C-alpha cells in the first residue's frame, strides 16, 4: 500500500511564514568542513600527520629508500660508526657533489677494540637513484634502484653506522619500521573491530551479556599491562614461523587494548541511545540495525578514531618492549625494538652509541601519534568553537 498517492494532495505549495535564520560562516559549513577546519588549526597535529605519512611511505617502499637490504652484511665493517656525507673537502676547502670517506678499521693494541678512521685519500661520491641490491617493491615488483647509495659497491656507506655483523643500521631501521609500524596498525584494527562490536552490544542491550563483559574487562585490566603482555607473548610457541609469531604478537597487543575501546564505546552508546533522535527513530519503528547504522556509528566514529589513534603508539611501544626483551618478533624479522636489543648492554651504549638510533624512531613515531590523536580529539566536537 502506497500512501504517497493520496498524500501529496494534502501538501499544497502554500508557503508558511518563512523564517530567515542568522547565517554566519559557522552555519554555512557542513559538519565535515567544520571538522577539517578544526584539524587544520592544530599545527602540531598537522605536522605530526605529515611526518607520519612520510615515515609510512618510506617504510612501505623500504627497498627503494634503504640503500641496502636488512640482511646485507659486511664483515670488514662491524659496528662502524655513522659516516658523514660531505660537500666540502676538509683539507682544501673545495666544494664537491655529495661524497664520503670510507672507513678503515684498525685494531687498537691496548684495548683490542676495532677503531675506525676515515681514509681521506679516497673520495667516494654519493649517488642518487643508484643501482644496488635487488629487492621487491611492495613485495611484488622486482627492482634494484635505491634512492641513494655509495657509487662504489666495494665501499659501503652506513649513514647511521652498522651492527655487529656489519649490516647497515639505517636500512635495518627502515625495514624494522615495516614491522613496528604495521603492528601498531593491525593491532589497532583488531582493537577497533572487537572493541566497538562488544562495546555497542553491551551498551545497547545491557543485561547479563553486559555484566559478564564488564567483569571480564575488569579482570583483564586489573593486571599491569606490560607483565600481562609478557606473559601472553611468552606463551607463543617458539617453533612457530616468524610470520605467525608476528600475528601472535599483534593479537597479544590487541588483547588489552580492546577493553579500553569497548568501555568507551559502551559509554557512548549508553548516552546516545537516550538521545531524542534515537527515540524518534524507535518510535517510528526503526530496527536496531538501522539505529546502530544511522545514529550510533556516525556519532561514535570520530571518538573511535581518536581512541584508536591514541592506541597505536601504545601498541608500537608494546611491540618494541616485547621485542627488546626478546619475546616479541624474532629474527630474521626486524623491528625497532629488536634493533634496540643491540643496545641492551651498557658497554655497547658507550662504545656504539648509534645503536640507540632505533629508539629515536620509536620516540618520533609515538610522539607524532600522540599529537595527531590530540588534534583529532579537538576535531571530534566540531560544534565547539
Amino acid at each position, binding site marked *: 500500500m502506497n500512501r504517497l498517492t493520496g498524500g501529496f494532495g494534502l501538501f499544497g505549495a502554500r508557503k508558511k511564514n518563512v523564517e530567515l535564520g542568522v547565517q554566519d560562516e559557522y552555519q554555512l559549513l557542513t559538519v565535515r568542513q567544520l571538522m577539517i577546519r578544526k584539524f587544520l588549526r592544530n599545527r602540531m597535529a598537522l605536522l605530526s600527520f605529515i611526518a607520519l605519512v612520510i615515515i609510512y611511505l618510506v617504510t612501505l617502499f623500504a627497498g627503494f629508500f634503504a640503500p641496502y637490504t636488512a640482511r646485507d652484511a659486511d664483515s670488514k665493517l662491524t659496528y662502524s660508526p655513522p659516516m658523514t656525507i660531505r660537500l666540502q673537502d676538509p683539507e682544501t676547502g673545495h666544494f664537491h657533489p655529495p661524497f664520503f670517506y670510507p672507513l678503515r678499521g684498525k685494531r687498537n693494541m691496548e684495548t683490542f677494540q676495532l677503531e675506525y678512521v676515515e681514509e681521506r685519500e679516497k673520495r667516494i661520491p654519493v649517488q642518487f637513484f643508484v643501482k644496488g641490491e635487488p629487492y621487491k617493491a611492495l613485495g611484488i615488483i622486482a627492482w634494484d634502484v635505491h634512492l641513494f647509495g655509495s657509487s662504489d659497491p666495494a665501499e659501503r656507506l652506513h649513514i647511521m653506522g652498522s651492527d655487529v655483523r656489519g649490516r647497515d643500521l639505517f636500512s635495518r631501521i627502515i625495514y624494522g619500521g615495516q614491522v613496528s609500524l604495521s603492528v601498531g596498525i593491525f593491532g589497532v584494527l583488531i582493537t577497533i573491530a572487537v572493541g566497538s562490536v562488544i562495546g555497542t552490544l553491551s551498551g545497547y542491550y545491557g543485561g547479563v551479556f553486559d555484566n559478564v563483559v564488564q567483569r571480564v574487562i575488569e579482570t583483564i585490566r586489573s593486571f599491569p599491562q606490560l607483565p600481562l603482555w609478557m606473559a601472553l607473548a611468552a606463551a607463543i610457541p617458539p617453533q612457530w614461523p616468524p610470520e605467525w609469531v608476528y600475528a601472535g604478537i599483534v593479537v597479544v597487543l590487541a588483547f588489552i587494548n580492546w577493553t579500553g575501546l569497548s568501555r568507551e564505546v559502551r559509554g557512548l552508546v549508553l548516552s546516545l541511545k537516550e538521545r531524542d533522535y534515537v527515540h524518534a527513530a524507535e518510535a517510528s519503528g526503526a530496527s536496531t540495525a538501522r539505529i546502530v547504522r544511522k*545514529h550510533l556509528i556516525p556519532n561514535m566514529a570520530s571518538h573511535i578514531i581518536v581512541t584508536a589513534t591514541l592506541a597505536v603508539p601504545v601498541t608500537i611501544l608494546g611491540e618494541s618492549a616485547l621485542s627488546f626483551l626478546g619475546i616479541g618478533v624474532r629474527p630474521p624479522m626486524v623491528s625497532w625494538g629488536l634493533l634496540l636489543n643491540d643496545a641492551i648492554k651498557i658497554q655497547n651504549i658507550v662504545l656504539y652509541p648509534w645503536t640507540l638510533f632505533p629508539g629515536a624512531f620509536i620516540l618520533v613515531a609515538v610522539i607524532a601519534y600522540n599529537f595527531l590523536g590530540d588534534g583529532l580529539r579537538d576535531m571530534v566536537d566540531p*560544534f565547539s568553537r
Partner: protein
Amino acid sequence: MTPVEAVDAGAILEIRDLRLHFPIKAGLLKKTVAYVKAVDGVSFSVYPGETVGLVGESGSGKTTIGRCIVRLYKPTTGYIGFRTSEGVSDIANLDKRELQPIRRDIQMLFQDPNSSLNARMRVGDIIAEPLEIHAIGTADERRSRVEDLLEHVGLGAEMYNRYPHQLSGGQRQRVGVARALSIEPRLVICDEPVSALDVSVQAQVLNLLADLQEELGLTYVFIAHDLSVVEYISDRVMVMYLGKLMETAPTRKIFERPAHPYTEALLNSIPKRVRGGHRKRFVLTGDIPSPVNPPSGCVFHTRCQYAKDICKTESPPLMPLPDDPDTSVACHLVDELSLSPYYTSEERAGMETNRA
C-alpha cells in the same frame, strides 16, 4: 493484531488504568528495591480531530504517558486502545512486529529540537527517515515529498541539504514537525514542543501546529507544564499531578471554573493578562513529592491549602461532576470549594469583543 472491545466507541485513543512503575535497581545483583510510580492509574479518551492538553509540573509523568502511547515504554499494566480502519488494538500489549503498522499512525514531537535531530544527518534525511523505515515510495518520491513538507512547514526546499546546526532553534523544531508528519500520522503526541524555544518563535510554531491540524485533520495530545500554552491550542485540558489525573475539562471551563485545588494553583502561577479584581492568590510552594513514595490518600494533600483529614487517608477517584459531565475531578471537597477562576466569563467575553 487482535481487535479489542472498545468501550468508548468514538475515541481514536482510549487509555484505561495506565500504570508505569520504573523499577529502581540496586546492589551487585541488581535487585529491584523500589519503583518510581511515574504513571499510576490514568484513564482518558481522545477523540478524532481534537487537541487534548496534558498539563502538570515537571515530574508529574506527562512525558512517560506520551512515551507509552508511542510505545517507547511498555506500560506496567493498563490498556491503550487505538482505533485504526481495521478496528481497535491494544497498543500496550502488542509486540514489536505487531506494532510496526500502528507506528505509522502515531508520531511524537519532541521537546528539544537540539537533541531530537541527529547532528550528523542532513535535514532531508531526517525528515525522510520515517518514510524510509516504512519503505514508503521510491527514493525520488520520498525526496519530492520531503521538499513539499519543507515548504509546508515554512522552511523551503533548499533546506534539504542543510545540517541541523545550520538552522535556528525555531527552524529546527519545524524540521521536527516535518519529520513527525512525513508518514501522515493521525495522532501526534507533542511533548512540550515549544518550551525549549525562544518566546519570540513559540507562537510561530504553535500557529504552524494549529494550521497543520486543521489542514490534515490531525489529533494532538499536547503536553505542557504551563496552562498558558494549552489555553491557546487545546480543546480540552487534563491536569496531572504525580502520576494521576486531577481534573479533566474543556479548556474554557478550566480557566473559568477550575474544580480542583491543583488546577487553581496552576492558574495562579500564570501572570494575569486581564484587568480585574485580584483575589488573594494561593501560590504553590515546595517541590513535587517523590513518585517513589507518593503521599497517602490524595497525592496532592501535602501541598493543598484545603486539605482535610480524609484527604490524608483516602484517595479521591476521578469522577464526572454531577451538573457537568464534561468535567471530571479527583477531589473529596469538590462540592464544597469555590475556587478562583483565571478569568470570569464576563472577562472572557470582554476579551473576545476586544479581539473582534
